[in-house]
Each structure stands twice: as C-alpha cells, then as structure tokens.
C-alpha cells in the first residue's frame, strides 16, 4: 500500500516560551522544535502497515523552512520520500486552509491511505486530517487507537477512543484518512543507518502555484481565523508557592498534608 503520513513540527513540550514583540505569537528564537507527538505514532503506524503490505510511506509536511528537519527525521525513520510545502503563501492558515493545501499535494501522489496525528500540540485544532479527508471525498476517523487492515485491503477496522475510558470499533472503507492517537504503538528510534540513508532521500518542494487552488483559499489569506494576541492564562486562584531546598519543601508539604488536607494518620 502507498501510505501518506502528514507531520508537523512544533515547539518542544518542555520549551520555555516567551511572547513575541508584537504579542501575536511566541518568540521562536531559542525554542527547540520537534516532530509533533501524535505524528510520531502516525509515522510508526504508517511504517508498520507499509512493511506488512510491501508498500511505501510518503511524508507530507506543511511548515516553514525549519520544519525540513522534521521531514528529515521521518525519512530517517523509514519513509521513502517526502513532499514539503514551505512557501510563505501556504503558511499561517487555519485547519481548513492547511488541509486544503495538503489534500491537493496528496491527491497528486495517488495514495491508498493517509495517516495524521490526532492534534498538534501548538495550535491544537485537531482538524487537519478530517479536512484532508473531506477534500479528497474519503471517510475519516479521529482519535484512532487501533487499525486492522481487512484481508482484501478494501476496508479497515478502526478502534476510536471515546470519553470516559470507552472505545468504539467501526469499519471504514478505503481509501481513508485516519487521525492517530498517542499510544497506538511504540514508535521506533531512527537508526544511524536510517539517518545516513535519509540524506539521499528525495524531499520534493511543492509551491503554492503547483496546487491548482485559488491563492485566496490558501495560507493566511485563506484562513477564517486570525490570532490577535497570545497571553498567559488568567488564573482563577493564585497558587501558593513552596520554596526552598528539597528537605525544606518536603517538611512544608508534610505540614500541609497533616494540617490542611488532613490525609495523614
């Protein structure tokens, strides 16, 4: 099977964030960027299905030039080649504009299955994969924690996470888009051999003009959402900080547990 996997590069979860001068986003200088967490599971799932079916994985990424590093990582993990959309006219879009562009690039490759992560950890729209499905006219499933390919490869049995610890199983016809939740598999690490091999793999740059879409429907211009500013959340109640070395903190906590929470016997 020919499988597309869509990935995004996002700030590391542990990164210290500073708000940019204009207040509209974070200062990217000094921030470590990584492959979006659920995307790593999507990549692993794509590789496993390709390995079982004797197919190949093509990575798709829409993002600024820095994201080329994330694309290289997916190639090092085992994707055969990549398609990269980094032209500024394609950036800054909402999920609808971004999904539109990715779907056009995927359509040009003619794949049997598209995998994405369930949500990005930066904007968190949790929507790009289903928008891609809509553009392609395919079914989709969000929050997938299990994938079982039918023998005839015409459908897939999908387990989806629901609220309150329940899972739903369903059957979906292929081709389809599956938005993968964390924990579905154990993502592999890139081997040295894989990293070396990735250097020779093709990353094809696709420009906005190649997509056959009205430019006013792409990127920031095609977006219905506009971020005015970002700020630290306003807290409902002020946290009381406990400071000092580990022993002092421990002593203070024991007092809280004993006298306020009253949970020590």
């Amino acid at each position: 099977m020919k499988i597309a996997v869509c990935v995004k590069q996002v700030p590391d979860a542990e990164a210290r964030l500073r708000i940019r001068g204009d207040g509209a986003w974070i200062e990217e200088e000094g921030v470590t960027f990584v492959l979006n967490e659920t995307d790593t599971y999507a990549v692993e799932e794509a590789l496993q299905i390709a390995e079982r079916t004797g197919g190949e994985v093509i990575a798709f990424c829409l993002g600024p030039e820095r994201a080329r590093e994330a694309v290289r990582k997916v190639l090092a993990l085992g994707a055969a080649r990549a398609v990269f959309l980094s032209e500024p006219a394609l950036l800054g879009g909402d999920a609808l504009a971004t999904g539109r562009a990715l779907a056009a690039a995927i359509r040009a490759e003619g794949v049997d299955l598209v995998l994405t992560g369930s949500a990005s950890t930066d904007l968190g729209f949790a929507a790009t994969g289903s928008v891609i499905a809509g553009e392609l006219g395919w079914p989709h499933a969000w929050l997938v924690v299990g994938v079982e390919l039918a023998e005839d490869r015409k459908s897939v049995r999908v387990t989806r996470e629901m609220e309150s610890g329940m899972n739903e199983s369903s059957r979906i016809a292929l081709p389809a888009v599956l938005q993968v939740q964390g924990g579905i598999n154990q993502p592999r690490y890139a081997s040295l051999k894989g990293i070396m091999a990735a250097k020779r793999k093709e990353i094809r740059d696709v420009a906005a003009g190649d997509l056959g879409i009205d430019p006013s429907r792409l990127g920031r211009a095609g977006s219905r959402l506009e971020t005015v500013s970002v700020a630290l959340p306003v807290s409902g109640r002020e946290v009381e900080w406990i400071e000092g070395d580990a022993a002092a903190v421990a002593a203070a906590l024991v007092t809280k547990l004993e006298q306020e929470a009253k949970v020590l016997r």
Partner: protein
Amino acid sequence: MSGQIWAVVQQKDGRLQRAGRETVAAAQALARELGTTAVAVVLGDGVAGAGSELAGMALAGVRVVEHSRLGAYTPGGYLAALAPLIRAGAPAYVLFAHTYQTVDYLPRLAQELDAGLLPEALGFQKVDGELRWTRPVLGGKLHAQVRTVGEGPVLVSLQSGAFPADAVQAGSAPVEQVAAALDGVDLQREVLGIESAAEGTVDLTKAEVIVGVGRGIGGQEKLGPVEELTRLLGAELAASRPVVDSGWLPRERQVGSSGQTVAPKLYLALGISGAIQHLVGMKGSGMVIAVNKDASAPIFKIATYGVVGDLHEVVPALNQALQQRAAG
C-alpha cells in the same frame, strides 16, 4: 441585528447531558451579547425527551431532528442531517460542546458549509465592538485571542466547563420537528460496537489521596520513589496520558478526558504539565499539590500549592520526611 446563534446540543440516550446544557448557556450568552436570539438543535433517534427539556429554556426555537439512522453517531449521518439545516437557517454562529464526537465531524461540517471553524473556545468578549474568542494554544501554556474573518457562519466548539450549565436561563420555546433526508446517505462508518478501553478495573474514583505522575517522571524505571510515596500516603497511583502512551503505567490508571474523572481530598501532581485533557479529570480535587520543573506549566493554574523543582529530588525528600514522622 446579526444572524441567530445556534446551539447543537449533544444528547445521550435521548437525554440532555451537562455538555448540552453548557452549549445552550453559551448560545444564550452570545445571543445577548450580539443582540440576537438563540436556537437549539438536537438530533438522534428517540430524542423527544431532550426536545422537551430544551423547550423549557429561554430560546427562540428548538429544532428536533429524528431519524433511525441517527441512533449511533456517524460522521456521514450527522453531516447529512446538519448541513442542509444550517445552510437554510444561515446562523451567524453555531455552537457545539468540544467533545470527542464533535471533534470527529465538525471540521467536515465546516468544510461542507464553507464555514469558519473555531475549535476549543474558552470564552468570548467584545473588544472595540468586535467579537474576540479565547482558545488555548501550546498545551494550554498560553491563551490566544482570535477573531474570525470572511463571510458565512462560524462553527465553534466550546471547552467543557467554559460556560457553566447552571447559567441556562429557563423559559419557553416552540419545538419544531425537522425532517432529515438520510435514506441512501453514506454514513461513512459502520459502527461495530463499544467496549471498555482498559482491561483492568482499578477504580480511582473512591481514592481519598491520588498521586498522579506525568511525562516529567522520565521513564518507568524511575517510578520507584513515587510508588513508595503512594504507599506511605495510602494513596492510589494515577497517570496522565503520555505516561500511559509510553507504556510506563497501564491505561486503567489514566486520569483525564479519556480516562477516569476523580475528585480526591488530595491530588499530588508530579511532573504533570496540566494539559486540559488531564485537568478535566482532576480539577474537582480538594487540594492539588503540583511539582513541576516549569513554573509556567498550566497545572499551577489550578494548584493549591506549587513547587517549582525536580520531582526526582522532591519525592525522595518527602518520603524521608513521611517516614520520620511515622517513626516519630
């Protein structure tokens, strides 16, 4: 006067749930803010009860969409039922609860209607006469103020708890049955069944004290001191999603939107950053003590006491202090 505000109200087994009432409360508040009226829509199979509940709320109307093919949720069924209705009614905003079900189909509904999509809103306010929405970004570390541009309705999903359900204004609303043309529609999914995700049966909801660990634990082999602390406190051990996904603790110990919802007297959050998916599962706790290296971690926004530090230093020290007290 701008277009109406619609609330698409999620129901379960024909009854409204808290999430549905929250959606109505939000629609009423937004309609007041914009000087327009609010309408509720409920869809499913056997939802007359939910319709009558909505009829007792201050709304300009209630639309009930009944169809046997809407019994089990499918994206194809919901799209085919909602898209023509919204297209014909042309509301300014359509509000939904940001549930797993909504997230599954809302992007496709927005796409089909060429509508705007604003997921996971926490609230709105008028700034210089313009409506601005707040939504979390970067794992909740920051909140973004966003505005919508362009023509056509905007579909907004609202984070759980953003608009309290008890703010719903009572009233009397006319109920209208709406026919849905679903025969022959591709449901896009054949639902086979629903089962429990976890194999075990650990019940965290009865625990008085819970020690929750997050990504900051750094590995399964580092759990020893935390398990010792759990034993010393007579507590239950719980985990946030990344810990379970990494296989460090079993899924039956997961707290959060896809795990258990707990409200112990004390919740000790160790190395948990506090993504909203985790917070919704434990924010009802009596006292929250959070230990995290990052002072800007969202967990500190709901914590009673906060320690900025390394849990691998704080936990052994706490264990020692508890042992000394017990020996004391």
